[in-house]
């Protein structure tokens, strides 16, 4: 199995709120620090990926992070324009207005059109080889299958036409496990774990795209061993006379909170591990206490991913 870091196209997905952008940014940064020319692309254009690198507004044209990846934001209209110009040699400069509304209509009417422009652009960049690796901050679990299956869906629905002739090479790229991989991000909580198990299964049964790994974000270190936890409980229960000052409330709250969170989290990691196919890498990414976002956090994620993936 080709290691996650050797693939040229990585789709990073996961349930909303699990930090897939953080992981995608960390992966892109890590690959860039290893001397690769990396393109990081945000699919849903919310600006979170740009925030992970502390860039301002990032559009369809990639912006370089010094010492890091190039960052771009997907724009299906710009992708359509590029596609028409480069692939079909239809010049549309200055006439995108009516075409865009036509396109909006077709995109609404024909499922998969919007998706194929996203996936098409990414595959195009893989084929052009201007970058060594492309890390995609992809759509969330509910939508990512639509992207991964778009070329096949178009292939099934559209029998002839230029779009049809374009899907074959995309499928070649997507379905090649040495080139393309999906990274599913979860947090050690009920819903993200359940969605991750479902998604990994759905990708494996409904597509030919390879799942390269699962990252469990915001995992917590074990606070106490079993015996120490009993000691903690005893002290916490019998605080009067020993530590009865109110100022210690916060300390005990924190330790209780940390223990409870860690216990629940560990249960979910166990469930996830048991449900995933054998041999699929499961990477634990620790909770970041000091910084929640920005370059510092991205860098920390890259460092710990490096430790886990090497």
């Amino acid at each position, binding site marked *: 199995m080709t290691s996650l870091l050797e693939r040229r196209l990585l789709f990073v997905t996961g349930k*909303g*709120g699990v930090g897939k*952008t953080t992981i995608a940014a960390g992966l892109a940064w890590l690959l860039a620090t290893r001397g690769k020319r990396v393109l990081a692309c945000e699919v*849903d254009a*919310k600006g*979170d990926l740009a*925030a992970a690198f502390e860039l301002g507004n990032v559009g369809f044209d990639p912006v370089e992070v010094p010492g890091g990846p190039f960052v771009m934001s997907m724009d299906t209209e710009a992708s359509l324009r590029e596609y028409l110009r480069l692939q*079909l040699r239809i010049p549309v400069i200055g006439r995108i207005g*009516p*075409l865009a509304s*036509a396109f909006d*209509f*077709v995109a609404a*009417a*024909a*499922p*998969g059109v919007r998706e194929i422009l996203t996936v098409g652009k990414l595959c195009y960049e893989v084929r052009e080889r201007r970058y060594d690796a492309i890390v995609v901050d992809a*759509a*969330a679990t509910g*939508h990512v*299958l639509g992207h991964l*299956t778009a070329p096949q869906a178009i292939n099934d*629905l*559209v*029998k*002839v*036409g*230029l779009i*049809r002739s374009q899907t074959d090479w995309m499928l070649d790229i997507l379905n090649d496990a040495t080139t393309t991989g999906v990274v599913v991000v979860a*947090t050690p909580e*009920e*819903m*993200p774990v*359940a969605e991750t198990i479902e998604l990994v299964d759905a990708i494996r049964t409904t597509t030919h795209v390879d799942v390269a790994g699962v990252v469990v974000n915001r995992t917590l270190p074990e*606070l106490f061993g079993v*015996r*120490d936890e009993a*000691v*903690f409980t005893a*002290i916490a229960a*019998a605080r009067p*006379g*020993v*530590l009865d000052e109110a*100022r*210690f409330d*916060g*300390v*005990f*709250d*924190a*330790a*209780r*909170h*940390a223990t409870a969170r860690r216990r*629940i989290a560990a249960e979910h990691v166990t469930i996830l591990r048991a449900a995933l196919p054998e041999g699929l890498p499961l990477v634990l990414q620790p909770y970041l*206490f*000091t910084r*929640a*976002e920005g370059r510092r956090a991205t860098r920390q994620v890259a460092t710990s991913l490096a430790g886990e993936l090497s």
Partner: protein
Amino acid sequence: MTAPSSVRRLVETREILLCCGPGGVGKTTIAASIAMLAATTTPGRVLVLTIDPAKRLADALGLEGIGNDVVRIDDETLAGVGAVPRGELHCAMLDMKRSWDDLIRRHAPDAPTARRILSNPLYQNITGRFVQSHDYIAMERLHELHATGEWDLIVVDTPPTRNALDFLDAPARMEEFFSSRLLRWLIAPARGGLLGLAARPFTQIADRILGTQFLEDITEFFLSLQSMYGGFVERARAVSRLLSDERTSFVVVATPEPTPLREADFFLKELASRRYEVGALVLNRALPSSLALPATEVAAEAMAADAEEISKVAARELDLDVEAATRVLRTAASAAREWSVVARREAAARERMASAAPLVVTVPSLDGEVGDLEGILALSGVLGSAA
């Protein structure tokens, strides 16, 4: 109407509460807790409409495998977890596929048209695979339930969307879609070869890209849909009206972390620009407030420094091993230091958001995940006591 000063006032005075916000912040749980609060503090019939509940929560609410039906959580079950119901608590789940099929059957002019649409591969693709269509159907179902007049309050958990606002614009988009000139251009030739000049460039390009056969498939599909134009547009307008009705209010849910808050903030602004009422901003899963106190960090440092001394006393009193007690206290102190950093960051974020909504409610993270009726009841207590 001015926004109410507490969640209790909100459930007493509104008929529809829409819980919305970024993914993964506990929207479904908050929606269920608001419904629980209403059922335990008002004499009304309350319904919570969930979109995609976690399995444990679905089990707890009795929703597993019931499709689109409404189920009541009976008083005995509620009493079993210590709830004292004053009204009735009902739950429903949104079955996307079935709701779409029902909608088509309702609006189709005749049975053959309905059958033709339901069996069209494009229709199945749209309803089955592409989540964007879910936004509309959730609002549509809300309208349907509200129109029955059976409920005093409906609490809705909004669907996970690419963009948290998609569902707000869904009715308008649906209407726009059906009235679009493009749809008419596309359908025109099939209606008797009246292909207008204006349609030509589009058709030519589309034809080159997509192929004639596919265009014909689309055309046929939308020609069938066109027959339902009137009904669809009328409903879409009714749904839009319902969202801006004074009996409807939005509850924005987030967690006090940077990314969800940024999204919640954006959402609040968009709601305001559409003149929808924001009833409350709920900051869910906040760390215990004691953690953010400066005294806690001082105490943690003192505990770490004096761990051995304290442990000697503790070990004597409690018959513990001094070494183990020292280790435990030092670990607890270091956990407190780590989490107090997070707690202070949360506190700063809460302060920033304090005036973002007329009512900002902080809900502490409970020990453990909320996945059963006890948890829902506990959360409803927190929501009910928030001023």
